[in-house]
């Protein structure tokens, strides 16, 4: 291996955003290197057995696992793209050098552009004994079940009735695990009702305005006490219910994995609608550090469908900035922007739109 690896575009993260960014940039002629810390690229798609919604352009009707395989094949068959699995990006430095760990070796890369597509991590929830083994992020349980084929336990309490909580509950049932209940602190179910109906039909109660009071267990989880919340989100004493479970899944949202953006010196801003601190970026997803782009959940937590389109937009924009696709790229950028607007036009996208306007300092502006 040469001392300094050269590439035109370096993509950090081989999830839906990163794979689409690489494919789009390579199609315009740029050479691309993808760094993926897992042994199989695809990001969280590798465990998503449910069918996607949206339009055909974002693979609606296909299962996440198949979309992941397709996106990976698309980059692996393009000679312009190199994929390095089991490789963790460590830092992006002032002189443009990027460092990574691969096979226990410290590697230096000199790209001309960088696209950070590092995704997001699951949030925890505060309550006594929330650190007991048996309490997992919902996505962790999805990984354990759908990638390793191992069930997390016998009986589950799902915390959070957003799409992840609802979908993972259904997947637990598919794997033969009992779901005692899904609880949700908000007065309404956050996810799509089609997912909620599926698990309700299977006899799983969904309790809105409920949260965890405490978990208990000797060494590992044995049960949880839940209680009801009033209209001001305050717990109502006397409404406690003791639920015997050996597994609790927390599906209480994600936060962007922005360490590299902070370290690289990107200007960051806290935007609650985008789930935390995110890098300030322009319409084409370039951050305040010239030549450094972001795509997917790292720039604001959304769904895989928008991550794929953001990836394409960042890939096309990075390639265009290197002089590739002068004739076609502007059209591709316009198409991606239109698709993003469409994906965010529903009630679920309202929050994202508001967040992006805040992030770009265009609050109050029409979109």
């Amino acid at each position, binding site marked *: 291996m040469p001392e300094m690896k050269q590439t035109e575009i370096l993509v950090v993260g081989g999830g839906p955003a990163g794979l689409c960014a690489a494919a789009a940039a390579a199609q315009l002629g740029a050479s691309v290197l993808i760094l993926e810390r897992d042994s199989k690229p695809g990001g969280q798609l590798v465990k998503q057995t449910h069918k996607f919604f949206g339009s055909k352009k974002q693979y609606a009707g296909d299962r996440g696992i198949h979309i992941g395989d397709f996106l990976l094949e698309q980059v692996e068959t393009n000679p312009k793209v190199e994929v390095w699995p089991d490789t963790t990006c460590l830092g992006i430095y002032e002189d443009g050098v990027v460092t990574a760990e691969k096979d226990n070796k410290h590697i230096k890369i000199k790209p001309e552009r960088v696209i950070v597509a590092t995704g997001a991590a*699951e949030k925890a929830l505060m309550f006594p004994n929330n650190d007991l*083994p048996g309490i*997992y992020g919902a996505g962790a349980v999805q990984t354990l079940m759908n990638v390793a084929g191992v069930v*997390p336990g016998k009986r589950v309490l799902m915390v959070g009735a957003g799409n992840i909580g609802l979908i993972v509950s259904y997947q637990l049932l598919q794997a033969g695990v009992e779901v005692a209940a899904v609880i949700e602190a908000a007065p309404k179910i956050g996810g799509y009702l089609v997912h909620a109906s599926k698990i309700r039909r299977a006899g799983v109660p969904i309790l809105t305005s409920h949260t965890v009071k405490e978990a208990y267990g000797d060494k590992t989880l044995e049960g949880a006490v839940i209680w009801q919340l009033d209209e001001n989100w305050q717990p109502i004493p006397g409404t406690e219910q003791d639920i015997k479970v050996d597994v609790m899944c927390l599906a209480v949202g994600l936060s962007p994995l922005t360490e590299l953006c902070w370290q690289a010196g990107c200007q960051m801003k806290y935007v609650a609608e985008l789930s935390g601190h995110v890098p300030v970026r322009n319409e084409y997803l370039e951050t305040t550090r010239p030549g450094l782009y972001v795509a997917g959940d790292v720039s604001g937590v959304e769904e895989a469908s928008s991550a794929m389109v953001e990836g394409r937009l960042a890939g096309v924009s990075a390639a265009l900035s290197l002089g590739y696709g002068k004739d076609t790229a502007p059209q591709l950028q316009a198409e991606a922007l239109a698709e993003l607007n469409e994906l965010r036009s529903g009630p679920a996208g309202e929050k994202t739109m508001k967040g992006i306007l805040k992030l770009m300092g265009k609050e109050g502006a029409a979109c």
Partner: protein
Amino acid sequence: MRIVEHPILKFQRGEKVTFFFDGQPVNGYTGETIAAALHAAGIRVLGHSPELHRPRGLFCAIGNCSSCLMVVNGEPNVRVCVEKVQPGMQVETQKGKGCLR
């Protein structure tokens, strides 16, 4: 416990191998993570917190949160949720912060 039948997925497991958890033999399959193999064997306490010695288990399963640090072949602070099983591997419950030898 391992899933045998699934409505959507078919699990192609690797070769069956034996490794050791605190000296006791445990079965796993090549290609799967140490955490998955331990879970399949019903082992969920992977370590103890350095200050209060509270039991620690798997939380994120994707190498992010560092809840699952164990000593693997003498090396401390290995994230067993992403480290793959190898035959004969010595996996130990980690006490404290671990030290590099």
